[in-house]
């Protein structure tokens, strides 16, 4: 058994991964929406296998319907932001009839204006953060702020991806890894005394297996 894979799989079991990281992403879009006094904010993640962007977290308009929805990875404003790694701000999207129609069909909501920033982690483009229909006129200082949010969201997305990869190792059906991960998760939930006893038992088991 590859030790890295075992470690990743156990981590996944202990952290009940997906939900925690989704909560982090949700918190980022909630805060972005509040700070920019916007109607909505979203984070989309690049699904490299399907070459599509998937909504992972949405605050405000579309929060109930958009998560899980998919868009092309290199067309439209989101696709352009992802592939060019460049942020951009658009005021009055409604003047663009084609975009409005396309967006309405895909998301059920047509924004008037938007800020779109690529989520970059190390050398990878992981997805896109958007803030829709903000109140005040835009300034360059806000672009910096958006960039910082983007950085935070990118770290969250990276964690989510790592957790999903680890979970995939478990789901591959390797019974030994799943059994160990399950044990780790159960152990983590025990009270101090029983946890100590459980750890001692595991240590004894390691000693037996080593012989």
């Amino acid at each position, binding site marked *: 058994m590859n030790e890295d894979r075992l470690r990743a799989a156990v981590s996944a079991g202990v952290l009940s991964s997906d939900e925690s990281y989704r909560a982090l992403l949700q918190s980022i879009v909630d805060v972005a929406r509040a700070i920019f006094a916007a109607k909505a904010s979203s984070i989309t993640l690049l699904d490299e296998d399907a*070459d599509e962007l998937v909504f992972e977290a949405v605050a405000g308009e579309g929060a109930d319907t958009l998560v899980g929805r998919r868009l092309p990875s290199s067309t439209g404003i989101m696709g352009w932001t992802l592939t060019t790694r460049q*942020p951009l701000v658009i005021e009055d999207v409604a003047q663009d009839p084609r975009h409005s129609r396309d967006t309405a069909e895909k998301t059920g909501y047509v924004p008037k204006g938007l800020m779109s920033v690529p989520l970059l982690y190390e050398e990878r483009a992981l997805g896109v953060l958007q803030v829709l229909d903000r109140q005040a006129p835009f300034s360059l200082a806000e672009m910096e702020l958006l960039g910082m949010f983007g950085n935070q969201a990118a770290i969250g997305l990276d964690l989510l991806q790592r957790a999903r990869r680890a979970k995939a190792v478990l789901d591959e059906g390797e019974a030994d890894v799943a059994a160990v991960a399950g044990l780790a998760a159960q152990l983590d939930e025990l009270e101090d005394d029983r946890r100590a006893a459980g750890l001692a038992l595991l240590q004894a088991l390691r000693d037996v297996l080593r012989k």
Partner: protein
Amino acid sequence: MEASPHEHEPENEREPIPAWSLPADAVDRIRLRHKWPERVTREWAWGEAGGAGVSVCILDSGVEGAHPLVGEVEGAVVVSLGDDDQTIVEDDHEGDLCGHGTACAGIVRAIAPKCDLHSVRVLGAGYTGSGPVLLAGLRWAIEQGFDLINMSLSTTKQQFAGLLHELADSAYFKRTVLVASAHNMPVESYPWRFSSVISVGSHEETDPLTFFYNPEPPVEFFARGVGVDVAWMGGGQLRVTGNSFATPHMTAICALVLGAHPELTPFQLKNVLYLTATNVGGDV
């Protein structure tokens, strides 16, 4: 499609001067044929040409040629990669897949109305192949000998950095000027960081001809990039913000200079930009 070739060739074919030395009898041969003024002003730098005779390539999401703010587009191609990774360049009938390329083209047209616009679309075939397609598109554009290539895009992939650097240098030596958007995020991205390109960030002023030289590289110039009214898809218009819109402002100013002084090398062009920048000598 064909780009208009450069018109910088010497009048007569002459023995090339070795790259590493200058023999005494060759000094006369590199004498500049065009006299520089004692003081470089915007009036001298831009002249009255309006960018006439200058070919400008928009390497982006395509350009909507029928847009009234864009006018005539001399050529439009789409770049893709074949099964064996060979570059495929075909006429582009899709127009613009996002609106961004049309916006850039409109900005250039507004400032340098007489330049020749060309669209090279490197987006639309999915994210996965976008890096290699960007490289292939840039290589093709450099081979065409465009005077200016507007690159409101970047890549963060280290594997492409070396190749992009080579391409940027080869363009510089072939008198094709790359104008590239700088990044305002804490990541390494290319090609704007290379010194052989002209890198552009945004300022907040509203005059399209106001641009600043930045004495603290890597960003070399700041041009208008906030609250810009631009052409968009479907014949529409939008108000937009971003370094990717500051870049075509700088591209267009370069087109004005090259329209008035087609003999300039990229090095000389950068000198003219420096001397005519708003914070250097451009406001007098």
